[in-house]
């Protein structure tokens, strides 16, 4: 156990080793580790942010879906209303048209009836005149009695 020059030589070697580690070994690996730690932290933060974004997007999609559903309901309601309204209008129009057609047909019928009645009347008058003529061939002059005959015709 005697001290000798080895002590100084070992101390120098030690100093050299410390210098080498401090300068060339420790900093690069620590930098790499710290960079990786930062990357991981950033990644975790980004993941958290993404999760939050996803949550917000889901909520917004839900809201929009609800709104859209509501609007669809509204639109269907108004369409149904409009449908009913159109149906009513069409019904009313159809009824009016039917009435009109009916009225026209009635008028037509009335006219035809009147016309037929007129024709019948004329025929009856003619028949009556012919009958009367036949009966009264001698005395009755169709020209002198035309006025009387016309009056008769109107009365029938």
């Amino acid at each position, binding site marked *: *156990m*005697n*001290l*000798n*020059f*080895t*002590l*100084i*030589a*070992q*101390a120098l*070697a*030690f*100093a050299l*080793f*410390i210098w*080498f*580690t*401090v300068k*060339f*070994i*420790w*900093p*690069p*690996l*620590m*930098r*790499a*580790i710290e*960079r*990786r730690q930062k*990357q991981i932290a950033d990644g975790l933060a980004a993941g958290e942010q993404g999760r939050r974004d996803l949550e917000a997007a889901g909520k917004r999609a839900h809201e929009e879906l609800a709104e859209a559903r509501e609007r669809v309901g509204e639109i269907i309601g108004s369409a149904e209303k409009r449908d009913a309204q159109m149906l009513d209008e069409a019904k009313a129009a159809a009824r009016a048209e039917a009435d009109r057609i009916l009225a026209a047909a009635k008028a037509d019928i009335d006219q035809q009836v009147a016309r037929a009645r007129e024709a019948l009347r004329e025929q009856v008058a003619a028949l009556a005149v012919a009958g009367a003529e036949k009966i009264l061939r001698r005395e009755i002059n169709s020209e002198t009695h035309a006025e009387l005959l016309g009056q008769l015709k109107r009365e029938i």
Partner: protein
Amino acid sequence: MAAEHELTPSSYIGHHLTFLQHPVGEGSFWTLNVDSLVTAALLGVFSLGFLWWVVRGATSGVPNKRQAFVEILFEFVDNQAKDIFHGDRKFIAPTALTVGLWVLLMNAMDFLPADVLAWFTHLFAPHGFRAVPTADVNTTFALALSVWLLMIYFSIAVKGLGGWIHELFCTPFGSNVLLWLPNLLFNLVEYISKPLSHSLRLFGNMYAGEIIFLLLWMMAGAGLAGTVFAVPLGLIWAVFHILIVALQAYIFMMLTVVYISMAHESH
């Protein structure tokens, strides 16, 4: 083992505790323990070279297993330093890593079976080769004194020369003039005891470990009965020694961090 000598217990142990020395000048101080120095330097170069090789290819992306292993080592040392030292760790943490790793490897040389290793070392060192640098008091003193110098350097760098001298005279008892001398004596004891306990703890543990191994192998060499006893005992001691090797390296590293961080704090 030197076959030409008669093998006695004391010659066996004495032989294994002989340094490979090389004189570099006049006097007994000017001698180099080549074995300690070369082993320590090789271990340092290999371990730091390995780290350097890994670090140069390090990626901040997904690390491979080799890099992950080195990162675990770094994180471990950095966390230990962080718990003790509150400040910029860009010097103290790599220093702790250097000390811890280097001392661990130097201690681990004790695992190599001394007599098997001697087959190779006898090729160039016939009179002995101490393979465990930390069982050489020069190595542990060199480390402890370097840490001690760092301690004083940081004390002065942080508090200023005036602050450091003030601390020598005015702590821990108080700044009364009558207390200057007791304070100084107290601080001197502290400054002397720190490197002594730091280095001798490691040296003592490793030296004792080495001696116990040698005693066991000596017993094994004494005959069949000795071998039967020595082998299980050697196994038990080797397993226990794994703990000592790691623990002493850890303690040495932690004390380095503690001493340097204490230097940063003013009392």
